[in-house]
């Protein structure tokens, strides 16, 4: 053990042993242990907290904007129609099909507030949508974006296993149907807009059959707003994405399609889209054209 003296009397050997075998567990249960310094960064215990999960997830979560809606006032955030998240490092985002129904790919834009690692931090990062691939059966769509737009942004894994009732979840998105996004009524009509991502939490309270499709949906006791459609449902326990939010009611429950039902579709889209990728402009070319 190196570094400054510690407030508890752990011997060097004892600390080494603890570090090797119990580091992760102790870090959760013994608050003081976090003050130990580690020679090897790889074994530093990492606490999975809701805050760290949201921070990890944010660079991969984007607002979906329909640019045809922009009125003469053209206010940032006004065009939000839903949320999408990075699902494949090759440049594929998942969202709900009803978010992009009837909108041409060229009229869609994804925009995120947060940089991907290693820079991280806050800043607006818009990127174009090359093509839209709606799922033939589920209310799910894949958005193909320039390949570099997803680099470093697939920070949370997509869970392949079933998720159990009782699992703690977080839902992070850009719900434009709430004053959490637009605060000009408080600060005055000419104030700058707030369009912070919004995180809700809840638990998976049931799995129910969908009304119209042969699939079980995840139900969670979390309020959601317009604009949350397409947002990732994140398991706090596993730190992975377990669902794609489809619909819900304010102050009631939300419904999501289990993410493992989308995985094969993302792969199928990538297989069909990759050979065509070179025919689309890069993100910078697209911006220059606009």
């Amino acid at each position, binding site marked *: 053990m190196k570094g400054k003296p510690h407030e508890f009397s752990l011997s060097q050997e004892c600390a080494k042993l603890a570090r090797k075998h119990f580091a992760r567990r102790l870090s959760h249960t013994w608050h003081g242990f976090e003050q130990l310094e580690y020679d090897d960064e790889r074994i530093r215990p990492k606490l999975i907290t809701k805050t760290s999960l949201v921070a990890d997830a944010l660079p991969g979560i984007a607002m979906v904007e329909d640019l045809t809606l922009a009125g003469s006032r053209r206010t940032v955030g006004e065009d939000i129609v839903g949320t999408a998240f990075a699902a494949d490092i090759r440049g594929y985002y998942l969202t709900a099909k009803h978010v992009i129904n009837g909108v041409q790919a060229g009229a869609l834009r994804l925009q995120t507030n947060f940089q991907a690692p290693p820079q991280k931090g806050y800043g607006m990062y818009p990127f174009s949508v090359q093509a839209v691939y709606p799922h033939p059966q589920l209310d799910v769509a894949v958005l193909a974006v320039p390949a570099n737009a997803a680099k470093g942004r697939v920070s949370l894994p997509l869970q392949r296993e079933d998720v159990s009732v009782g699992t703690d979840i977080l839902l992070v998105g850009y719900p*434009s149907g709430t004053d959490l996004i637009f605060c000009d009524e408080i600060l005055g009509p000419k104030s700058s807009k707030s369009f912070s991502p919004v995180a809700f939490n809840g638990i998976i309270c049931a799995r129910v059959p969908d009304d119209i499709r042969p699939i079980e949906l995840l139900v969670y006791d979390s309020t959601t707003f317009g*604009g949350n459609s397409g947002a990732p449902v994140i398991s706090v326990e596993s730190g992975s994405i377990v669902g794609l939010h489809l619909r819900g*009611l304010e102050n009631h429950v939300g419904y999501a399609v289990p993410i493992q039902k989308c995985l094969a579709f993302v792969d199928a889209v990538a297989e069909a889209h990759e050979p065509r990728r070179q025919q689309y402009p890069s993100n910078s070319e697209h911006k220059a054209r606009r």
Partner: protein
Amino acid sequence: MTADDLSRQIAAFLKAATVAADQLANSSGVPLEYVHIEEALLKTLELDESIDLLSKHLGTDEIVSLLADFDFRRLFPETIEDVRLDSSIIPSKTARQLIEVTVRADGEVWRIHKNDPDPWPSNPHAHNLQSGLKLHLGTGELFRKKRSVGKISRKDLELIRTKITKCQLPPLQA
């Protein structure tokens, strides 16, 4: 059908349709994507749901041949105008989809297309972007796909008609 079978069918259709999109884009001069092929096939084969396309087991050649005479410009309607209303004119008892796509936080947008690929229920008619409903601009009747789901009040119909200024409206019906 098992989940694996379905995934295989979806993958095969995606591949066939994207290749067909490239071929048809070259011949028609219209920039086409998978989504346009899907929409054109639904109209040509008169199917309601995309899932019904999978059971047809269509290959690229069949798709190209089925859509050889399809006018793809229909799929790119030009917007005549957007009408923005401060409050909703859709009666509260109208069945709405429980979805969360949001067009604007503070009102309702109705869009009118030029050369609408589907000149029904009236020509022109208004699309509500928030709910997916279509409005007959002569009668005030609301439709989801081809099904009537309600009617807006006469006062609201007259309000929206006064805001549409860039096209000729169908006659007001009793």
